[in-house]
């Protein structure tokens, strides 16, 4: 995850409390989604950014995961995400995201 984004996620968690922050990802494939999810839950696995060794345990979803899709107005979702949902390997993304949430999410 981009170092600047790590910094911003960390600042939001400090400002609003980690229990009040949900990180929504739009990454293009499973591995990148998993890495970003790991970064905001268990800390930066590449040991490069501000979240190195910081276990925020935030709630994190990819926008194409069914858990978060049902939170949207279907029309808005179709207009903004419908095309990408057709393009992305949603199962692969879900399979990467779920275990990380189960293991590291604190909320």
């Amino acid at each position, binding site marked *: 995850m981009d170092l600047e984004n790590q910094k911003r996620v960390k600042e939001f968690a400090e400002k609003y409390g980690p229990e009040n922050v949900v990180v929504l990802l739009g990454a*293009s*494939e499973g*591995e990148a989604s998993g*890495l970003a999810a790991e970064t905001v839950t268990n800390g930066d696995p590449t040991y490069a950014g501000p979240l190195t060794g910081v276990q925020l345990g935030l709630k994190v979803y990819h926008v194409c995961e069914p858990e978060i899709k049902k939170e949207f107005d279907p029309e808005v979702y179709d207009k903004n*995400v419908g*095309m*990408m949902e*057709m393009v992305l390997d949603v199962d692969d993304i879900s399979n990467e995201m779920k275990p990380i949430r189960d293991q590291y999410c604190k909320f």
Partner: protein
Amino acid sequence: MKSVIKGTGYILVHTPDMVLHNGTTQTTERIVNPDGEYLKELPKHIRTYEEALSYWPNQVYIGNKTPQELAAVEQPWYDKTCDMNDRFGRFGQIMPQEEFILLMQACDVFELIYLDKDFVAAHKGELAANPLIDETIMARINEGVDKAEVERLVKEEHSEGLYNKGVLVGAVNRAHDIDTNLSAHVMLENIVSKASSVLSLLAAVHNAGIAKSEVEYVVDCCEEACGDMNQRGGGNFAKAAAEIAGLTGATGSDCRGFCAGPSHAIVEAAALVAAGAYKTVVVTAGGCTAKLGMNGKDHVKKGMPILEDCLGGFAVVITQNDGVNPEINLDILGRHTVGTGSAPQAVISSLVTDPLDRAGLKVTDVDKFSPEMQNPDITKPAGAGDVPLANYKMIAALSVKRGDIQRADMMKFIAEHGMTGWAPTQGHIPSGVPCLGFVRDNMLKGNIHRVMVIGKGSLFLGRMTNLFDGVSFMVEANDGKKEEAGVSEDAVKSLIAKAMKDFANTLLAQEEKK
């Protein structure tokens, strides 16, 4: 007057030592994790010049192999040797680091670069033998200084070292004691960009078969900025490179837009020619040291060679309609506007389907789409996926939503209207434009008739706006009709004479009626 693509130049420069010393992934790692495994492992993953020459995507970039031939080679490509390893191709060349360091010195007009005189003596003949390099450029090469002086500059004067095969062979001095915009680091990046732009210009002008004196305007669309503390992005890379390339009849300016820069620049250049402001405009861009080895950590972790070991450059010569070369159709432009938004669906609509709708065309009326043509061999192991393929999937998915194609035909559409990526991940370099050499070839042969080039840029990286950006344009086969360049003086005289004669006749007729 329409504008046409008269020729293109595509160059790579193999710069293994710059990967280690100037790529930001490596320079950042040297600060945050200097004793880490990555920096220890990295040198074992650097490719030789010969290995870079026989790398499939590199041979496609300079035009010795085609994207179609590349698509037939099973991925990954880094473990396969291309059966072509010529350093020269029909679009340009792959320059070795030694020649490039000398070319950098030739491009330095402020006595900032000092090379070890033994290095100069050993490699000067190699640069002189390069068919694109003439005596005027060779005359700019100094004999160099003692190695001890180079070492002193790096140790005592904050100069940036230039290395070859791990040995210090030169130094780039800072151009100001305090101004960070003229620091040695910035000067090195900018001179690298300039030198690779010069090589691209030379290749393109040569390939277009025009005289250097015909070039009236140059537009540079790289992603660097040159200036001082009072005008940080003052410019002008275009004119600076044109000077060294010997384009004495040209002026120019810089156009910026992150990775969308080249598409913006080509639209602007085509418009300048179409408007009659200039007859011949060249769009050019040099390469970027910062991005060398950008995904190196993933490549090393996966036991791969460092594939981002080449600077890229390109130039496109745009001239008035000659009735032969492919036209840039300015009636079919796509643009991501301030109000478009950043959802991928909105982005692709604004760049691809909106301009087609305005022109009354369907997605399937376009033979090929050329979005960001990044080499997937580089991006896939780094978790960024296959960028061109992702773009094609988006275009296909949008076409399904619009009813242009059936969902079951998405992959067929991608195979027919897409291309496999081959360009180095040098930001602006892969953005749409790498296809233009092949597009020109295939349109001249009559194989294809309409290609959409799509450039996209991540403006938010500059922290001035959160907006995304993009622009697209259409290249079409020439319909063969040669246009007159405006109305001639004689034609104007005869029109006036005819009007006066008609007027006189009318007056006479009125007199007669009375």
